């Protein structure tokens, strides 16, 4: 009896672990119109821009949370980003620049001074604001009519944009597991979503709610 229970528990655990490893099935796409691809690209600012966001962050649901101001400046042509995080009083907690894949941290106050944090933050900023550099590996329309554009990186990870009733940017690892997902809400002000909710699942879960306060092209 005891052995059976252990076996059941063991099998359940193995099944659960395997479920976590499973890749999502490939979505079958119907060919899309050229405008569909333009719609995916239109989610990102096309020229140099700067914006200020109110950021509400939840690191542990029901636990650690904070509100900050985020300033981001970008130039998609040069693949450049400049990001500053401030307390409501205006203290700079974190400031970094990114050109291509190189991150230069200009200022970082604990607990924002780890390499993992700067890499994760700049990945979030790139995901939300920089359009993919190359053409998509795949794009078209899913069975329900949603526009789907997909870019695959050399490391096997992929970025997806899905446009249906909701506008979504996702990042999946090489196994197809969802790493990060951002929901963008209209209206778009000067090419920037007025509300964005980003959920990170791997390696550590957190949630960011960004409210656009100002944006200039």
């Amino acid at each position: 009896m005891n052995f059976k229970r252990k076996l059941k528990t063991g099998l359940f655990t193995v099944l659960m672990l395997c479920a976590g490893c499973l890749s999502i099935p490939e979505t079958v796409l119907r060919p899309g119109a050229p405008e569909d691809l333009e719609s995916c690209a239109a989610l990102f600012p096309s020229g140099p821009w700067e914006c200020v966001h109110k950021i509400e962050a939840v690191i542990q649901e029901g636990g650690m949370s904070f509100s900050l101001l985020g300033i981001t400046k970008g130039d998609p042509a040069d693949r450049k980003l400049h990001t500053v995080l401030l307390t409501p009083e205006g203290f700079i907690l974190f400031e970094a620049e990114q050109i291509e894949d190189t991150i230069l941290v200009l200022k970082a106050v604990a607990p924002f001074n780890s390499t993992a944090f700067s890499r994760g933050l700049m990945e979030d900023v790139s995901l939300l604001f920089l359009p993919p550099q190359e053409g998509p590996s795949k794009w078209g329309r899913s069975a329900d009519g949603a526009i789907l554009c997909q870019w695959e990186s050399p490391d096997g990870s992929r970025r997806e944009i899905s446009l249906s009733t909701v506008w979504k940017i996702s990042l999946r690892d090489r196994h197809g597991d969802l790493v990060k997902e951002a929901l963008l809400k209209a209206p778009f002000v000067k090419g920037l979503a007025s509300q964005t909710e980003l959920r990170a699942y791997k390696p550590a879960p957190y949630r960011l709610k960004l409210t656009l306060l100002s944006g200039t092209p």
Partner: protein
Amino acid sequence: MGAVTVAGLVADKPVHSQDWASLKESFRNIQSVKAEFLQERHLQILKEPLVSEGRFFYLASGSLRWEYLSPLQSVMLQKGDSVRLYHFSEGAWKQDMAQGVEARRMVLAEMSQWLQGRFEESRIFSYSYSQGPPGRILLTPGEGINRFILSIEIVLSDRPGVIDRVEITEPGGSATRIAFRNVEINASFLSKLFDEP
């Protein structure tokens, strides 16, 4: 522009300059201050300054509530040596995690001293006073802090013991300017303002 009258009960006649001793006397008569403020944060990354609005409540017995109303809602509560920070998010007040708490605690302690005119007691800044007009108190940080703040200038209005604005200059061309308005001096307010967000 509005101003914080830190000596409103002592003299309400405009003065063109005030010596250090009479300025100190003016500060000593303050029991409480309530005011609104407009803060401009100038950063090199931004073309336009980041503007925040808020209010504060101060008791000379050692309590300060420094509250931002927009664009973020947050509050710092100081009562004696205890400092707590909260932000308003998803419909509720939440206590802050530790980001920048030490720096914020230091600034709160300094502000309490400024509101009492105790500039010489700072362990971080040395001061100099120029009678003006307008009267100016220049605070210069010691080694270490000067990596973050180059100077703080407290500009007095033409009314005795009145702070018109505070200007904080940082390395790299960044600056903060806080201007005060709608001031009430020695008004009474509930002590729970310093206990709850």
